[in-house]
């Protein structure tokens, strides 16, 4: 009798052991698989960086540091400099952010603080739908609708308005082409608006109601609550959203290519055509004959990679800070 029960328990222990071993095995496989996936991302990132560096080596070793400071981009004499595309990339993105941030914050304040409940969802969805429009659509719309409108109405008026005012007349000098730096900045502003709005809305939701209610309680107006309580509390998070938007604006290619004018020049006027790094690559890569030409385009890609990397790192850092703050 006892022998039988002993046999049963020992066989039970054996099955248990087998099951545990199997569990351990599946767990190990699972852990290795996830780890490999994570490593794969790092390998890809490293691979992209290495291929960009090797691809651009010829241009960088020939032009050296002057690649960053030369405006000329001359395929005839094979003398290439990245200053005009870098300038165009930074200026269009900066103007886009300048326009999109106040509007984005405005929408977020309205949606979280003031909006009647039935309107909240439709407006929120509409803003998020803006993010879903493919960039080529923005490009076509910009070229066929927006640019002719700017050329015939807005630009002549602005040129006339600032005519003879030192500084401003240079910034808004003609001729009105319709497409140019300002047009692409405006298109970019529309494109980054949903990013800034939705992140700002999310961080506004993290403001404790008790803070806002106490402020209202001591007689603050809505403006004062927003200005003195909500925005200071979420400042870092807003900055993170702005940086993410900036990252998108810096790398945007198709819409910008349509409306920026693709001219390798730096002009004081915002109405003048210019170019960005990604637009230059998209335009010229297929047709770049000559190794130095191709290498210079890859070097442009490397510069954009570094700029975007820095911007995104700053964004991540800032979002991290607000997360730990909200957690605490």
């Amino acid at each position, binding site marked *: 009798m006892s022998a039988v029960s002993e046999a049963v328990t020992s066989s039970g222990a054996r099955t248990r052991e087998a099951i545990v071993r199997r569990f351990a095995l599946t767990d190990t496989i699972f852990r290795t698989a996830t780890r490999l996936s994570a490593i794969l991302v790092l390998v890809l990132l490293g691979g992209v960086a290495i291929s960009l560096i090797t691809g651009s080596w010829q241009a960088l070793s020939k032009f050296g540091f002057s690649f960053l400071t030369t405006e000329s981009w001359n*395929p*005839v004499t094979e003398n290439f400099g990245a200053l005009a595309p870098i300038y165009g990339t930074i200026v269009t993105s900066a103007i886009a952010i300048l326009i999109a941030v106040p509007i984005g914050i405005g929408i977020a304040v309205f949606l979280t603080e003031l909006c009647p409940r039935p309107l909240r969802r439709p407006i929120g969805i509409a803003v998020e739908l803006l993010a879903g429009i493919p960039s080529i659509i923005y490009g076509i719309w910009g070229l066929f609708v927006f640019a002719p409108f700017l050329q015939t109405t807005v630009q002549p008026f602005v040129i006339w308005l600032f005519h003879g005012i030192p500084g401003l007349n240079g910034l808004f000098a003609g001729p009105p082409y*319709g497409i140019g730096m300002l047009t692409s900045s405006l298109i970019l502003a529309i494109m980054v608006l949903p990013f800034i709005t939705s992140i700002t809305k999310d961080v506004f939701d993290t403001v404790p109601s008790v803070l806002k209610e106490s402020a209202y309680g001591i007689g603050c107006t809505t403006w004062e609550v927003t200005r003195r309580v909500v925005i200071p509390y979420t400042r870092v998070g807003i900055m993170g959203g702005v940086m993410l938007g900036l990252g998108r604006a810096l790398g945007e290619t198709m819409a910008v290519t349509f409306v920026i004018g693709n*001219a390798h020049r730096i002009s004081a006027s915002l109405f003048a055509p210019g170019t960005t790094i990604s637009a230059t690559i998209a*335009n010229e890569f*297929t*047709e770049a004959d000559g190794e130095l030409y191709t290498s210079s385009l890859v070097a442009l890609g490397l510069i954009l990679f570094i700029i975007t990397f820095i911007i995104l790192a700053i964004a991540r850092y800032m979002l991290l800070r607000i997360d730990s703050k909200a957690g605490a």
Partner: protein
Amino acid sequence: MRHFIRSAVVAIAMAAASTISISAAMAADISGAGATFPYPIYAKWADAYKKETGIGLNYQSIGSGGGIKQIKAKTVTFGASDAPLKGEDLDSIGLAQFPMVMGGIVPVVNLEGVKPGELVLDGPVLADIFVGKITNWNDEAIKKLNPDVKLPDQAIAVVHRSDGSGTTFNFSYYLADVSADWKSKVGVNTALEWPVGIGAKGNEGVANNVAQTGGAIGYVEYAYAKQNKLIYTDLINKDGKKVEPTAAAFSAAAANADWSSKPGYGVILANQAGAESWPMTSATWILVYKKPDDTAATGEALKFFAWSYGKGDEMAAGLDYVPMPDAVVKSVEEMWAKDIVDSNGKPIYSGM
């Protein structure tokens, strides 16, 4: 569940088999890549050729520079370029080059109240506009050529190609020929450092931007100007005569050319003499290997080109391209029989 898995496996196997058979069918097609300028006529020829022989053409119009890259990498059977390769380049890579068809480049403008062919420009004025010396439509130099046209006080918006292009090569070749200023400041290439203006991708891009921008001037291949109903201008040619961009004017320019003067028939037809000649005429070339690895594919491609030379003239004319003169075709086919050979030195092409 098991049943489902089995049927899924069968379905996948069948799909794989069918893709394999599709790609086997694709292998019989002629593959080529290159210039966008002749794409409309190549597509039309290919369509008619397929109906007659069952052999299709897979032509990617990725641009002349791309075509040269692809043929160098041997990913296609033939490359197509609007800018001819130099004799020494052809020899070092082992390529044969021959012209396929010709066409014209026309200046197009967007001026209110100006109809197609109403405006006349000449080479030096065109060069001055594109170099940024003439910036307004009521400039004296333009007025002098057009005493009867009411020219507006409007800034000139120059539109050029933003990508490398054989059309740009031929256009800048002409401007350099007529303007020393252009030659020294800008030069001749498929891509340039443009002193003024806005860049647009492809013939379509330039056509669209000119149509969208008031006061614009650009240059496109004639077929694009025609399809988009753009306002083209007339030009004054080398003999000082005013000419309209027509197929007759393009072929007049070609008739005066000495095709055997350059290796690989690399004659650029810009600014040819002759009272009827359109000054911005250009040919487009085909590149194939003289000793191809895949002789069957090259043989099929040459058959297609021979067929196009022989039967494609009317289709070309319908799209405002100019077919090659018969004497040139004869010389090209003799060159094929002599130069394009398999590994035993036997000619690949042996007549239709």
